[in-house]
């Protein structure tokens, strides 16, 4: 894996749906609240932290191509505010397209930082994501289910011995109210990053409740 592979994936998406001569169609925004749990496993031990994470996301679309940016921040602790704790900060920027109506392909960087008193661990992951979304019921009460999986084409971390890879996924449902631009999403997301030589594995999972305006 290298930066060139990630750049190639991103270019493929951009070529598939050229941005040129296409004006922005709409912008939608969303805010989410997550109940998150972090687990770190090292040979012979590990730690588990949990907490709430707040996030925002904005997306603008150029016909079938979208640009999506997100930011989330929260504090994870061992339990009831005592013991070790970390702040987690996560940001991403994705370009996405819909080759078919039910499938979204995304590519872009995701940055995540765990801020601890002993130092900050920063991950940079160039990811490729595939998301399938299909209706469960419509049109009176629009219900859609989605499943998303992703893998990091390139990943790096500022800790030895370096990143070995990352992958994750998400599944949930979106409920749109009739004749309203508001929608709700309930989902479960999980990802896992590995360091080289199996030195450490970190997993972050969350149940996310999102409220959005516009789009879906």
């Amino acid at each position: 894996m290298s930066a060139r592979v990630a750049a190639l994936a991103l270019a493929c998406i951009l070529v598939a749906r050229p941005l040129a001569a296409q004006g922005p169609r709409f912008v939608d925004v969303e805010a989410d609240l997550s109940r998150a749990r972090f687990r770190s496993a090292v040979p012979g031990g590990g730690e588990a932290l949990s907490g709430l994470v707040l996030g925002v996301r904005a997306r603008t679309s150029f016909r079938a191509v979208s640009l999506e940016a997100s930011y989330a921040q929260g504090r994870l602790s061992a339990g009831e505010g005592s013991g070790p704790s970390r702040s987690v900060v996560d940001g991403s920027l994705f370009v996405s397209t819909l080759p078919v109506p039910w499938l979204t392909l995304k590519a872009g960087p995701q940055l995540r930082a765990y801020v601890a008193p002993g130092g900050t661990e920063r991950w940079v992951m160039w990811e490729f994501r595939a998301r399938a979304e299909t209706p469960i019921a419509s049109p009176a009460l629009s219900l859609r289910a989605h499943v998303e999986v992703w893998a990091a084409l390139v990943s790096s971390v500022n800790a030895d011995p370096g990143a070995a890879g990352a992958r994750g996924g998400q599944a949930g449902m979106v409920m749109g109210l009739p004749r309203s631009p508001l929608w709700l999403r309930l989902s479960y997301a999980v990802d896992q990053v590995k360091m080289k030589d199996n030195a450490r594995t970190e997993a972050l999972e969350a149940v996310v409740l999102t409220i959005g305006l516009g789009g879906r």
Partner: protein
Amino acid sequence: MRPTAALLGLLALAASWGRPALAQTPAEQLARGVRSYQNLDFDNAAATLRAALARTGPAALSDTEQARGLVYLGATELYRGRRDSAAAAFGRLLFRDPRYRVDQLLFPPEVTGLFQQVRITTRAAAVVATPLTQLRRAGDHLVVWVYTASSQPVNVAVLRANGVPLRSLYQGEVADSLQISWDGRAADGSLADSGRYLLRVDSRGDDGRVVRSVGLRLDVMQVRRDTLPLPLPLADSLLSPEFRPGSSGRRGLMTGLAAATAVVVLPSVLASKAGGMSERFVVALALGTAGLYGFQVQRRPQPIPENIAANQALRLAWQRQADSVSAENAARRRNIGLTIRAGVWRPVAGQ
């Protein structure tokens, strides 16, 4: 045999001699009377003219011929020294036609002078209206002309068939003629009902009393315009189906269950070290419930929004058209028209 044959011949001659006189038409009698007047045979002229004017029924003189006969009769009586009879003939003439004037080229000044004297003192009036008038909208009216022989005060009113006044149209002096109008309404502003009415002109004397009345029959009929038919209800063939049959619902159910399964197995598949937080089962349960809901909903007939919108537009257009027709019909019901047929004026009272 000869004397007998001669007698019979004389009788036949006498019979054939008298027949033309008895068989003369009033017009011929009038012409003969005029010739007698011109030949200064006033006695014969008076007798002949009176005989012509006395004829009634289908053989009677026309209005024009009667006027001619009366003016010659008046002139004849004047030259016979019967001034009162002459004045009576001229008065009779003016009652028949208040606008009549003696031709000064045909009659000498003493005749025209007497006629003028009679005319000035005669309270005679006539009334004429358009034979057929249709009052369809505000502003339409029946036009009536009142003619008088001389300047005189008159009252003009419309009366019901039973003589009850419906509306007074004019009260005042008329020098020669007057044009008035009637909008078909009673004094209180209501529209006249269908029926027979009398337009009466009362000529008043110097003392204010009615000395003569003439009337004009008016047949009034209320006319309601036909209302327009409402547009036909939209035929089913014009409307698109608004629902499609429901599906089996399995797709919604399977989608929900598949997503719920994904929530449950994601940690095992993608993040073996995550362990899987128990809260994710809430998400899985919600997805499973949504799948069951979808199963139920998708089995019902599914609305077709674009067809519903198109049908709504058609119904709206139909409703607009129906409202327009209803408004037009309401206006037509409010605006009742009148058709007025006017007869020929006749003396009602007085001389």
